[in-house]
């Protein structure tokens, strides 16, 4: 019995010894690694962690073969995952390599380990699952050394950002557009054909206008109808308007006394002034004191007005001047 047990044990040991190399071969078929770009960082600095799985061409071509990369949570023990890339495949003739890169950082100072990464390997028609595990990686997270013996330094001023002309391309384009539009408008208005000036040919002189108005006033027979005030208002207005345009004095805005003073330089004859004074005096009484002059006085005032027009009528040489005055009147 004892002898049989010993033989059975030797047999099993030999069998295990024969199978062991096959199991090793199976494990070495998928090579997985985890590699960090550095093993020492300052607090808050970033580490690139690259996970790699290397496959043989047979495994790569095998439709039943699959490898599942480890799914890292956002936060590992003492490490934070900042970014992660998608899976990348690099194929050569002999090997096929799968890569995935993670950016990690740590805010805890000390010596920490990135834990082993477990890859799931599925093989065969019956989907046999196996695992491949990477080695842990030790990382030193160091704090920034502060020299407390030194004085505090002031806060740094705002740093000027280097500028590029392309930062302002939109403004430059708008400015150039406005300049072009203004330039175009200037060019348009300058090159536009000028309109021919409209020449107003004088049609009637102040003298003729006043004569016509006096004639109309006579025909209206205002004083004969009892409207004496209106008659003298119109009569003096005609004379004042005539003086204004003929002699360029603001006769409409002057009282009778002022008018007599200001008309002096243009009507040199005393007789003219006396007639004008007499006419304006009667007109003022009729306009402001309800005076009812006699019929003879009405006629006399009209005659005086006509005489004043005749005396102050411009000579033929001054016809041009008349025209100018009439233009002003029309304006």
């Amino acid at each position: 019995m004892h002898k049989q047990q010993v033989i059975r044990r030797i047999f099993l040991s030999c069998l295990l010894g024969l199978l062991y190399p096959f199991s090793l071969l199976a494990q070495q078929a998928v090579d997985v690694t985890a590699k960090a770009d550095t093993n020492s960082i300052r607090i808050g600095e970033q580490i690139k962690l690259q996970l790699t799985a290397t496959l043989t061409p047979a495994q790569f071509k095998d439709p039943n073969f699959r490898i599942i990369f480890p799914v890292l949570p956002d936060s590992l023990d003492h490490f934070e995952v900042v970014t992660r890339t998608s899976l990348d495949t690099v194929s050569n003739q002999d090997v096929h390599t799968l890569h995935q890169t993670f950016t990690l950082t740590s805010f805890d100072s000390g010596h920490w380990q990135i834990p082993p990464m477990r890859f799931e390997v599925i093989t065969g028609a019956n989907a046999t699952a196996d695992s491949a595990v990477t080695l842990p990686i030790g990382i030193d997270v160091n704090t920034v050394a502060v020299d407390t013996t030194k004085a505090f330094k002031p806060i740094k001023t705002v740093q000027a950002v280097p500028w590029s002309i392309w930062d302002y391309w939109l403004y430059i384009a708008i400015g150039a557009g406005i300049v072009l539009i203004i330039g175009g408008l200037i060019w348009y208005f300058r090159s536009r054909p000028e309109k021919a000036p409209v020449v107003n040919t004088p049609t009637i002189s102040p003298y003729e206008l006043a004569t016509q108005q006096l004639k109309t006033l006579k025909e209206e027979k205002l004083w004969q109808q009892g409207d004496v005030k209106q008659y003298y208002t119109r009569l003096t207005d005609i004379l004042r308007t005539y003086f204004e345009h003929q002699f360029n004095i603001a006769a409409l805005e002057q009282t009778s006394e002022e008018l007599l003073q200001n008309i002096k330089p243009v009507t040199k004859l005393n007789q003219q002034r006396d007639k004008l004074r007499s006419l304006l005096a009667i007109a003022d009484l009729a306009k402001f004191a309800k005076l009812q002059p006699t019929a003879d006085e009405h006629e006399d005032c009209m005659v005086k007005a006509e005489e004043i027009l005749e005396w102050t009528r411009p000579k033929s040489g001054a016809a041009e001047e008349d025209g100018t005055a009439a233009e002003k009147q029309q304006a």
Partner: protein
Amino acid sequence: MENTSSDIRQLNEKIHQASAFVDLLTMELGKVIVGQRYMVERLLIGLLAQGHVLLEGVPGLAKTLSIKSLSSAINAKFSRIQFTPDLLPADVVGTMIYNQQKNEFVVRRGPIFANFILADEINRAPAKVQSALLEAMQERQITIGDNTFKLDEPFLVLATQNPIEQEGTYTLPEAQVDRFMLKVVIGYPTKEEEKLIIRQNLNPEASSPIRAIIQPSDIIEARKLVREVYMDEKIEKYILDIVFATRNPEDYKLNKLKPLIAYGGSPRASINLAWAAKAYAFMKRRGYVIPEDVRNICFDVMRHRVGLTYEAEAENVTSENILSEILNAVEVP
């Protein structure tokens, strides 16, 4: 009732006779006042139109002498109040004092109880004293304690302001200045006039004293006639045009005046312009107003009623400049 042509003719004759005292009065005042005819004329306008006069001029221009002589010529009572910073309203209008014998309060009337008041340097007294005087001017009555006293008619206040010294003065507010019918600016006499002034002062015996030409009751009668002076609708429109041009210059094609005028004439300006024009026509012995009358008194009635902006002051534009522009732009009827 509307005036007819014959009414106005009768009125004209009546006024021609009644206004004769104006020339006599002017001649009488001329015995002691050399020159200053303009100021005397304005005082008479204020007297006839029931207005008050604010006089602006440097000291020594016969302001006191003028109003004192006028009161003598009218046989009226005259008071002079020198306004000072420590003056109290009671010093002007009067106060209640305790009579120990009768064991009661009695009224002590102030200097304002007179026909002619010279309020000398009115801007030297504080606002409450100015207000007391200006209230009396407006209401023509004074209340002391429980008693109200009517002021004697005629009642004319001639207030003076010195345009040079402004330090330590209380400038009259616009609302108070508006209560003066006329603001008259007087200047120095001419060389000839000043020569006569020297002679008159060196030999005071040579000039005869002022005689009473008329009585206060004559002035009250004359005022009634001034009220009757005929003012045509055209003249009323002319007055309104002038006053409205100070308020809305752009309506009279005077856009350039718009930024220079802070505020224009109040309705009181229109009323006073009409009154003063009537009084001026009366003094010229006419029973009706003509545009010359309005223009003649326009500056004195309006100059203190046109407020200037900061821009106008910066450009040295005066209210007289503005009024000149307006009178040259508004059409005369």
